[in-house]
């Protein structure tokens, strides 16, 4: 339903107003790949760092003649050592995400994809490398990566509730999980703990439909999951409201708790709200500590 092209253009539109996102760049050493994050020391890179006297091992072509001409010694121009951050995205593509309570609202999946890709665009513009979890798309940079990512994100899964894959996460990289987190919490928990083991930090964004928050139902109702696999019948839906809301709050609380343990950040976003708010929050969450 969402073609990669429209998804891309939507994401571009959403990402346009923001400055390039610079992800936190800690422990760059382990991912020795070139990026735009200066290491405050000499190394390979594009920007000028310092002039130093030429030493014996320096090749003659590396001598900066313009500088050397102003003095008697030869000088070599050092560049700042720059590396890139890797960010892994997981956007839930399960059937539960394709829910929307009102024709005027986007589906949760659409919102999640847009936000995820917008983040990716920002990060790539910022010079980061962005990929998807689970070895489907290793972190790379460049526009082509975006195209590929958009295509992969447009696919939908058959299962009711999605679970993140912790595979393919580079140590000390960063990750972004976008889902409704309504399914079984176990896989999420595991994935988060594994990510934390590898030193991966990041953000959890829970995307919910307003109806999932309000539970405005009454009377005899059979609730079905999106694929129809799960069902629950009640005679007085109105009576379930408070207990459902309790459980939802409990779920959010659990996610918050997990995030606190693992050093992630957690936020709930509703499809009825503006996507920009969520993107701003993501910006803040991924920019942390820089």
């Amino acid at each position, binding site marked *: 339903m969402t073609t990669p092209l429209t998804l891309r253009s939507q994401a571009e539109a959403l990402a346009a107003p923001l400055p390039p996102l610079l992800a936190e760049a800690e422990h760059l050493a382990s991912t020795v790949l070139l990026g735009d994050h200066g290491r405050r020391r000499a190394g390979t890179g594009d920007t000028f760092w310092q002039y130093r006297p030429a030493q014996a091992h320096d090749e003659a072509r590396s001598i900066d003649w313009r500088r050397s001409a102003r003095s008697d010694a030869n000088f070599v121009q050092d560049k700042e050592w720059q590396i890139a951050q890797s960010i892994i995205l997981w956007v839930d593509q399960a059937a539960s995400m394709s829910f929307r*309570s009102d024709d005027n609202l986007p589906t949760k999946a659409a919102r999640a994809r847009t936000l995820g890709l917008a983040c990716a665009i920002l990060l790539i513009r910022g010079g980061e490398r962005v990929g998807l979890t689970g070895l489907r798309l290793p972190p790379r940079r460049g526009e082509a990566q975006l195209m590929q990512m958009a295509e992969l994100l447009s696919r939908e899964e058959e299962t009711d509730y999605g679970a993140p894959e912790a595979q393919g996460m580079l140590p000390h990289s960063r990750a972004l999980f976008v889902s409704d987190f309504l399914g079984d919490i176990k896989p999420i928990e595991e994935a988060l703990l594994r990510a934390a083991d590898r030193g991966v930090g990041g953000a959890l964004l829970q995307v919910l439909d307003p109806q999932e928050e309000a539970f405005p139902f009454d009377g005899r109702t059979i609730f079905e999951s999106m694929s129809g696999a799960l069902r629950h019948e009640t005679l*007085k839906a109105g009576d379930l409201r408070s207990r459902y809301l309790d459980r939802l709050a409990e779920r959010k609380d659990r996610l918050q708790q997990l995030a606190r343990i693992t050093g992630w950040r957690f936020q709930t976003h509703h499809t009825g709200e503006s996507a920009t708010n969520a993107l701003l929050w993501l910006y803040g969450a991924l920019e942390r500590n820089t």
Partner: protein
Amino acid sequence: MWSIGSIGFAAPWLLLGLIALPILWILLRTVPPAPIRRRFPGVALLLGLTDDENQTDRTPWWLLLLRVLAVAAAIIGFAGPVLNPQNAREGTGDLVILLDGSWAGANNWQSRIDRVETLLVEAALADRRTAVINLNDLPVGDVPFAAPSEWRNRLPNILPQPWQPRDAAAWFAQNDGSFETYWISDGLDWDGRSDLLAELETRGSVTVFQTPRQTIGLRPARFENGEVIVSATRTPIGNPLETSITAVGLDPAGVERQLVTVPLGFNAGEPVAETVMVLPPELRNRITRFEVTGTRSAGAVSLTDDALKRREVALIAGRDEREGLELLSPLYYLREALEPTADIIDGTLSDILLANPDVIILADVASLAGSEGETVLEWVENGGMLLRFAGPRLAASDQGRNQIDPLLPVRLRSGGRSVGGAMSWGEPKTLAPFSTESPFFGLPIPDDVTVTSQVMAQPDPTLADRVIAQLSDGTPLVTRNLVGEGQIVLVHVTANAEWSTLPLSGLFVQMLERLAVSTRPTNPDETELAGTTWLPNEVMDAYGRLEDGSALPGVAGEVLAGRVPGPDLLPGLYTGADRQIAVNVIDTETVLNVAQWPARIAVEGMQIVRETALKGWLLSAAVMLLLIDVIASLAVGGRLRGPRADVAAALALLLMWAPDAQAQSADDFALRATSEVVLAHVVTGDAETDEIAEAGLLGLSQTLFRRTSIEPAAPIGVNIETDELAFFPFLYWPVTADQPLPSREAYAKLNRYLRTGGMIMFDTRDSDSARFGSGSPEGQKLQAIARSLDIPAIERIPPDHVLTRTFYLLQDFPGRYASRDVWVEAAPINAEQIEGMPFRNLNDGVTPVIIGGNDWARAWAVDDNGRRMFPVGRGMSGERQREIALRFGVNVIMHVLTGNYKSDQVHVPDLLDRLGQ
């Protein structure tokens, strides 16, 4: 048709279906409403939650009741219920439908005809020959049997008559044949009714249709002790009854009007009620008939004739100086004779003539002053009657000796004569019998009436024609001359007992009556009316409507004397030679009795009950209930909540559409008033005042626009009852004497306005004529308006008030008038003037009111072309005054908008500079 009470059923066996209702109840009760399927990703969180209570798997009882009612309504509806089912009357053979057709039935004649029509319809269904007979209008010949449909066409021609039936039994006796009778009775008993009933019963069965209605008859009004007594009679049935009687007559313009209406109450069980009308004679003489209000029947109308009319008689005597001798007064006997039947006027002749009496009696008045005589003569020629009595003065005067006095019918010989006295020969004379031409003809002459003195008439060729009463010796006693439309009558003796015993006798009173000086007794007897012919003036139909009777033939006096209306004597007003007689349906003795029927006669009510099929109603009720059930089921099933709530919202929006439009106009007003500074005036309701106020504020707005940084939009008229005042910083209120006081809500609004910083400028516009304390109408109105307003203590504008310097430096506040009486809120008591400062330190508040009467609006007013609408003062000084008025206006608005800004001491140096100190 099977029926319960007044409801019948076409298919009663369908009602057995009602037995199934309890089963339906049980069935429906166990079936819960169908569930809704909902896709909901949050279901994972719901797993494991159970319902608290299980009772809702049954349908709620009220929903069940709704459904059962719907089904019951449908079952009963299909059973074909009919309200008031009509069972067709059975019967065969000929049918006679009798109508009493008297005035008593006129009031609801149409319902009787409707009843006859339904009977005819039934007769047509039964295929019976029918005759409809109005007992008051019996057909000639045989009983006119015909097809019922034919009679239905003739029904409109059957009309009630203003009398009671007679001789009906005899008419039926001449016709043989047997038939069944339906008798539509008017409810009144009449002579011969039982005979007719007996006659009819020999022919077949009789059914009577009669309503126990009350019939009211109005008896002729009578006159007692100066009051008109109106009495009415009714069929003596039970309850007290309140009605009213209206007297109808011509007003001075000749238009028929209701002159007076009095209530009339029957006590319970009483057949007769009386009430009293007290009327001035002028009004009373105008009455032509009395009516029972709201009843259309000849019995409820009573025509009046001469019996109620009372003549106005003026008495003038020539010997007023002899006080105390009542019995010798020339007017004593006249007064005694006339008082019961006439209205007597006293006074001087010139005053009396203004009242235009019917009769003027001059007792022993010899001559009238020249101009008076001419006026009296003119009055006589216009129909007045001058009755003169002789006496010593007339006898002693030369009046009418040598020439004919126009105010005397004959010439008189000097001195008169005296017979039968101590100093004279002969016996006192008695009266000769009246001749046939005399108006007194027929009056018995008592033996003891003797005449001892008289004035004598000059023998004359015309004398014989003018004598209408004479003594036994042939000398005239009463002479009469017709002058124009009136007449002059001379009685040749005194009006007291000095000259004759005539005033002591009953003959005197009768003679006065015959002369139409006083009114005659009510009922002329047959002998009196014998041989006369009376012309109907107006006749009355059974509904009590009056019609012109001039085309009808005259009625013999003998018939009229009976006063019993019938085909030969229509009720109405009959005119004879010199009087009118009214023939009414009800006379003073009439008693109204309810027609009582023997127990063997079936009596039915008059009302026609129509069949009403209830099927449609019940089926629609069932459908409505089912519709309600749909909504209720949706509500119970939760389908009205949640995602479909927008439907309900849309419905609610639809309902709220109308108020929205009103809110729109209120919004427009608010926008207009608040998007720019707007001066406003209170709409007083007086178009001119409002127009001037608006023009004045326009002029002030233009001045402000030109001279200051205040740039107001066009002024607005504010209705304090309906409009919001909070938008306006300033209200100009021209006070008019006749404007209504604001309502309670408006007062609340005004007080809120004043408290929250608004300013009202009251302008009584009367400074030219009023001063402080003098109560001009506008001033009183202002007091009335301000009584409920929250106005602080006020004082005349002090010379250091901030109004004197908010923009211009002013000490005068003129408008079109230049009064100094302009009042504002008083300064606080502790405000002290500091040494060396030109004004006190008054730091707070804008005065909420300015009260004055200088008519500022007229001074400010400009028309559409910007020209001044009203002149102010004269010449250049007037223009100067207008300029000051405008400056005052500018100051006021500045004060309103900037408050006490100019009161701040910061401005003191500048102001001192400008004040030249």
